[in-house]
């Protein structure tokens, strides 16, 4: 048998940490003969292999693309700094895992953009591939660089680096794009002509075909296409018949332990809840479920084809899945006798979920997670988190009586309209949870209880009711964190309560990039040149590289992060139509100010606009 070639020799692979990141050959990875395909697609996740291999989106599109005989889709991840250095020193071009061929020779380089802190890694991938960083400098010697994923709901801070963006769910329009590309190659179009034609496809945004002018105050004056044939708004593309959408029955199984080392069963997409801080809750509207039958069939196939020892249900709010009980019972039946674990994240803590969890995990060791997000009821009403103190305390009580003694509570600090009382409220809520524990007769308690309150800093995101909100400054965050922490220390059972909070400077940068405009492209590039890379890794994050980058380009980060936006401001992302209307978001922003709760999609339609897609929860009651 012919031995599989690797782009890197043993001299390199044995010098780097975890060479398994770079050799491919995983179970279910797809090999094709390059001679037999018309389109070679390199799919990049701009972070470490172990992170990227945990991502469901790539697996879905990898499988879907490779079902086409004319396409070979391969994967590429960010080389860790140890290999990064060697590739630069030895002039080795970045390569894909399957064929081990240089990325630059591909037809497409698709980059999934999951979080803002990976922006410099996008430049690393382009740079190591030998592809010009700026789309305008590319020729047919370079692939078409296309971005997708959640961050493309505001692609402007990275617009210069992409030929195309795909706005929406990948399952819907790639076939059209590939077909167009084949025509382009057959007829020998120029790159410009291809991009122009691609701009006519629904959901495809070609940043170079739009012009932005700014007002003196730095806000956008006008954002418009350069010609009449180019659409002024880009409509997000979504799957309407979610039950029949393509799903990878045989996802690639890494040798290395990925961050999420399990089979993922996506039960639904979208969310009915309408939490006002949550971008996913808005951009993935409307909620669309898969049928129980489909999920049973998928689960069976996934386990059989991967051999994983754990299966996880994935969605924004799994408790809202209508046939959850039946699904979970099926999985328990199928899995437990074969030694397969079931993991159930994002479940509301109630009698049902506790009963299920007691069957699938070790109660004594595991901890239960609540996400009140805010410490007071008023604040939870501001953010429209439909979780009341009663519900939390009742859930905690049932959990403690069920044998659990470890509880985690997730909070955000820096939310709009937050006061000192709200920060202190975090401590008070923790104490109330402790009270519930100590109300249980001593002989029925299960050792000492442990309550962990973990705080992250709120980052306002595009397409949420909080897109108008000023973000707290790092020092405000820390003040509030200290207020909450000091308050915890005055609580009766403070010895049971652990209080932790996240790094503030990374959150602020995330805030700048999340609501940034095209002017930020220069800063992203400078930050990369200043050595910023793997910014999402706290120990690698260099605030200095970014501070210098903003200074070098005359950019004031506060303009993006801390400024309150006026109601009539044109946002950099306004050209995208997510179905949910700006007027709905504005209404929700007002409701937030009034701490007024909006019912969820199943209780009452609030007319957000997502009904235009013609499917999902909007039409549930009409069936």
């Amino acid at each position, binding site marked *: *048998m012919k*031995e*599989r070639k*690797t782009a890197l020799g*043993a*001299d390199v*692979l*044995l*010098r780097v940490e*975890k*060479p*398994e990141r770079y*050799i*491919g*050959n*995983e*179970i279910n990875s797809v090999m094709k003969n390059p001679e037999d395909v018309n389109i070679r697609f390199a799919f990049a996740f701009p972070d470490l292999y172990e992170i990227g291999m945990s991502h469901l989106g790539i697996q879905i599109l990898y499988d879907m693309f490779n079902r086409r005989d004319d396409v070979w889709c391969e994967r590429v991840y960010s080389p860790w700094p140890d290999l990064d250095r060697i590739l630069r020193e030895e002039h080795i071009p970045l390569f894909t895992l399957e064929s081990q061929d240089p990325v630059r020779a591909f037809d497409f380089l698709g980059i999934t953009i999951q979080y803002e802190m990976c922006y410099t890694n996008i430049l690393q991938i382009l740079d190591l591939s030998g592809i010009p960083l700026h789309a305008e400098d590319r020729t047919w010697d370079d692939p078409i660089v296309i971005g997708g994923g959640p961050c493309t709901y505001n692609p402007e801070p990275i617009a210069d680096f992409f030929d195309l963006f795909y706005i929406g769910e990948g399952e819907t329009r790639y076939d059209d794009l590939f077909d167009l590309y084949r025509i382009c190659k057959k007829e020998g179009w120029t790159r410009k002509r291809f991009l122009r034609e691609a701009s006519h496809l629904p959901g495809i945004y070609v940043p170079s075909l739009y012009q932005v002018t700014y007002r003196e105050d730095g806000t956008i004056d006008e954002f418009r296409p350069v010609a009449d044939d180019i659409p002024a708004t880009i409509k997000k593309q979504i799957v309407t018949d979610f039950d029949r959408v393509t799903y990878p029955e045989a996802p690639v*199984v890494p*040798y*290395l*332990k990925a961050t999420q080392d399990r089979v993922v069963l996506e039960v639904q997409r979208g969310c009915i809840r309408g939490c006002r801080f949550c971008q996913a809750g808005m951009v993935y509207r409307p909620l669309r479920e898969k049928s129980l039958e489909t999920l049973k069939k998928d689960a069976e196939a996934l*386990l*059989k*084809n*991967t*051999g*994983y*020892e754990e299966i996880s249900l994935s969605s924004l709010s799994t408790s809202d899945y209508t046939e959850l009980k039946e699904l979970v019972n099926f999985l328990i039946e199928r899995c437990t006798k*074969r*030694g*397969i*674990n079931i993991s159930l994240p994002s479940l509301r803590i109630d009698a049902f979920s506790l009963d299920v969890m007691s069957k*699938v*995990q*070790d109660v004594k*060791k595991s901890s239960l997670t609540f996400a009140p997000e805010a410490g007071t009821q008023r604040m939870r009403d501001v953010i429209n988190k439909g979780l009341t103190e009663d519900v939390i305390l009742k859930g905690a009580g049932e959990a403690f009586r069920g044998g659990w003694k470890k509880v985690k509570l997730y909070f955000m600090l820096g939310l709009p309209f937050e006061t000192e009382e709200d920060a202190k409220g975090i401590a008070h809520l923790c104490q109330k949870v402790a009270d519930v524990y100590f109300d249980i007769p001593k002989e029925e308690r299960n050792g000492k209880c442990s309550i962990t309150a973990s705080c992250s800093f709120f980052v306002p995101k595009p397409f949420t009711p909080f897109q108008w909100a000023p973000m707290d400054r790092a020092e405000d965050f820390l003040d509030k964190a200290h207020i909450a922490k000091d308050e915890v220390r005055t609580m009766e059972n403070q010895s049971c309560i652990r209080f932790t909070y996240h790094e503030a400077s990374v959150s602020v940068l995330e805030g700048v990039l999340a609501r940034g405009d095209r002017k930020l492209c220069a800063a992203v590039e400078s930050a990369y040149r200043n050595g910023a890379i793997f910014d999402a890794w706290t120990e690698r994050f260099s605030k200095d590289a970014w501070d210098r980058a903003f200074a070098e380009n005359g950019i004031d980060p506060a303009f993006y992060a801390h400024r309150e936006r006026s109601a009539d401001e044109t946002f950099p992302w306004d050209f995208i139509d997510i179905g949910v209307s700006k007027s709905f978001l504005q209404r929700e922003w007002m409701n937030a100010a009034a701490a007024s709760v909006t019912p969820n999609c199943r209780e009452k339609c609030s007319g957000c606009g997502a009904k235009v897609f013609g499917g999902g929860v909007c039409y549930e009651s009409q069936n």
Partner: protein
Amino acid sequence: MRVRIKFSKNGSMKYIGHLDVMRYFQKALRRADFHTSLSGGFSPHMIMSFAAPLGVGLTSDAEYFDLDLEEAKSSSRMAEELNRQMAPGFRVLSVREIPSDKGSKGMTLVAAAEYEVRLRGSVLPEDCGGTRISELLGLFLAQKEIFVTKKTKKGEREIDIRPLIYSLSYSDGTFSMTISQGSSNNLKPELVIGAFAAFAGVSAEKSDMMIHRKELFADRTENGTHHFVPLDELGTDIKEGIDS
């Protein structure tokens, strides 16, 4: 029932670390729908033990693990079903029944290993300072003691490796050796070649060596002489009749 599975690991799969190989086989066994015995508790695991973990960068024709099964098929059928689940570079060579007692575990029994080592490029020229490698090797082995520095977790210490080398020869660019392997007196092939290179007046690092494991042996010493038996020979084939 306990079986011993022998497999090979070649090509780029030499970069897969031992723990990941273990996880890889657990998944392969589940894909092949093997009825493995499981430990109790909330995260039950297969009862599986490797005879001698292989370092990253080494290839092998003789990796072994012992596995407890609830239900077995014939040896040939089990090997075939597992091979359907292998990635290129891995190949299951045999599945044989072994006794279930503690003393029969591969990990306990392994006493020696056969390796082939090739050196990259011109680290050790054929005509090494006027003396041929094979002649030098004779002189090297004729020494009563060969002291090398062994790095351990506690630091460095000097050990005499001569008694741990059972055979060592050279032909056509390849060193072949049978050396001590196991929980006590574990000798690594790179240490042997490193010592020989030093004896020849050159320096050879592990990264210069292509190391291939050929076999793992139990020692069935009789009358004071080593009698090395490959680990798979200690098992017996499960016959066809068992398949339905």
